């Protein structure tokens, strides 16, 4: 039984897009075949006559997502969900290209089965989760979280997954375990961004991220295996990814193959690339601007065209201060951004 403790920042169920509406949309796309889906994806490319570096990308076949059984969420956050089509076509996943639509276009043949997620390091019970284990080792539940990108746009996403804390407990960390070091799959054959510096944005792979162990134990930290009722598509980090909703999106590492418990603060990809722009903590903070743009407000990506993308104020800890502010009570968040 799941005991649900609601708090002010939680999602309300009535804000979820009606399932019938949503399923009809998918049926239409299925009936149109991939031609329809592909033309939807490639409109920006065909419009890009003056965009001389734009590439024509059309997936051969869409990645097969499976339905998941999970405890559906009762309650919501009182904010409209971002439509699934937008969550799955607007992605920062440089392993599949730096442009927002590239991951959905270039990842559809990604293989997630077999998969190995290796939990190692300062733990009494090192373990490896195979593909099936990702869905069966823990009870899956739905959680609606705001996702705030460091680029100042945001979404509201109905994730499915399990608490990272459950995984940590199962691994039984030793007293030396102070941090968790996460690592994304390194597979240049499957991930074109890891082969080409231009596609991959010139960052060093594999992508790595980290959390302090008390952050990892916070009930909000989620290991997600699905969204909108189904397993994750590759562009969103299939088959398993981290979701830490009070931090900027780049902390929520995708397609995780390793979680190592370590004593020292682990290196993290964006911090390595530009330490003055991206900190280890990367807590959402409207008071601390990115050196090149303001973080005081954000554009919420919702349904509708260009007039519907409303700018709203950004909240400290992305609105999850009630649950996480205690973790940082003795820290200067201007210094530890």
């Amino acid at each position, binding site marked *: 039984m799941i005991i649900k403790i609601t708090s002010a920042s939680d999602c309300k169920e009535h804000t979820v897009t009606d399932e019938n509406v949503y399923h009809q949309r998918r049926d239409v796309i299925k009936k149109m075949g991939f031609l329809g889906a592909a033309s939807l*994806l490639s409109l920006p490319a065909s419009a890009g006559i003056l*965009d001389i570096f734009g590439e024509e990308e059309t997936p051969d076949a869409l990645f097969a997502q499976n339905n998941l059984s999970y405890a559906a969420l009762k309650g919501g956050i009182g904010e409209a969900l971002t439509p699934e089509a937008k969550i799955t076509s607007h992605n920062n996943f440089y392993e599949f290209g730096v442009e*927002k639509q590239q991951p959905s276009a270039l990842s559809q043949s990604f293989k997630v089965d077999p998969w190995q997620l290796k939990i190692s390091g300062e733990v009494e019970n090192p373990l490896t989760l195979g593909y099936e284990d990702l869905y069966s080792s823990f009870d899956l539940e739905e959680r609606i979280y705001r996702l705030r990108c460091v680029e100042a746009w945001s979404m509201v996403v109905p994730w499915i997954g399990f608490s990272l804390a459950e995984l940590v407990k199962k691994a039984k960390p030793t007293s030396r375990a102070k941090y968790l070091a996460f690592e994304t799959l390194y597979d240049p054959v499957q991930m074109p961004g890891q082969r080409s510096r231009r596609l991959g*944005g010139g960052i060093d792979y594999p992508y790595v991220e980290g959390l302090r162990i008390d952050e990892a134990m916070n009930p909000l930290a989620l290991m997600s295996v699905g969204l909108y009722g189904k397993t994750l598509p590759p562009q969103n980090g299939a088959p398993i990814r981290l979701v830490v909703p009070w931090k900027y999106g780049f902390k929520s590492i995708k397609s995780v193959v390793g979680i190592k418990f370590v004593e020292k603060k682990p290196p993290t990809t964006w911090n390595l690339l530009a330490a003055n722009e991206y900190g280890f903590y990367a807590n959402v903070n409207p008071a601390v601007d990115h050196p*090149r743009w303001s973080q005081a407000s954000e554009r919420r990506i919702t349904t509708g*065209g*260009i007039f519907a993308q409303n700018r709203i104020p950004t909240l400290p800890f992305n609105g999850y201060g009630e649950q996480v502010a205690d973790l940082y009570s003795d820290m200067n968040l201007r210094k530890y951004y």
Partner: protein
Amino acid sequence: MAITVSQKRIPYLKVLVHLAALYPLLNLYYGAFTDQLGGDPVEAVIHFTGIGALNLLLISLLISPIAKRFKLTFLMHFRRMIGLYAFTYALCHMLNFLFFEVQFDVRLFIEEVFERPYITVGMSAFMLLMALAITSITKLRRKMKGKWQTLHNFTYLIALLVVIHFYWSVKSEIIEPLIYFAIYAALMVFRYKKLRGWKEKLLSR
């Protein structure tokens, strides 16, 4: 390979250039209004018009070297037009940012222009480009006489500022901006004599 095009045909060719420049823009906004530009139509229109303005600016800088080298003098008829389309795209780029990104929050807009170096650089380039667009009117050009050319030589500075603006705005994917730097450098090499002339003039003062 000198090709001459009779004066009569120029207007037809101009119509083609108008269509080639306007169609992508209309297509873009149609997609943006009908939600067919992927996840974030705002980012899409800002990037498209920005890159479009830079490409058009570089094309306008390519015209005179090509016209001279290959004796295609008729190309010079299109230079002002393409320059004005570069301005049009830049205007759309700036308005997209004001309307759709900061959404008429004028205070935020002004803050961003002055606090973010890459936006300061972009806005400076836009202001200069606007001066060139206004003075492209034939009447003004005649009035300005020799000063006109001096003012319009600023297009070399504008193109450089725009490339810096692009380079500075990206998160990590610097290869594309570097390609633009290379194209800019190549365009300046064609003007080696002109640039050297300025240098000597400056030194002899």
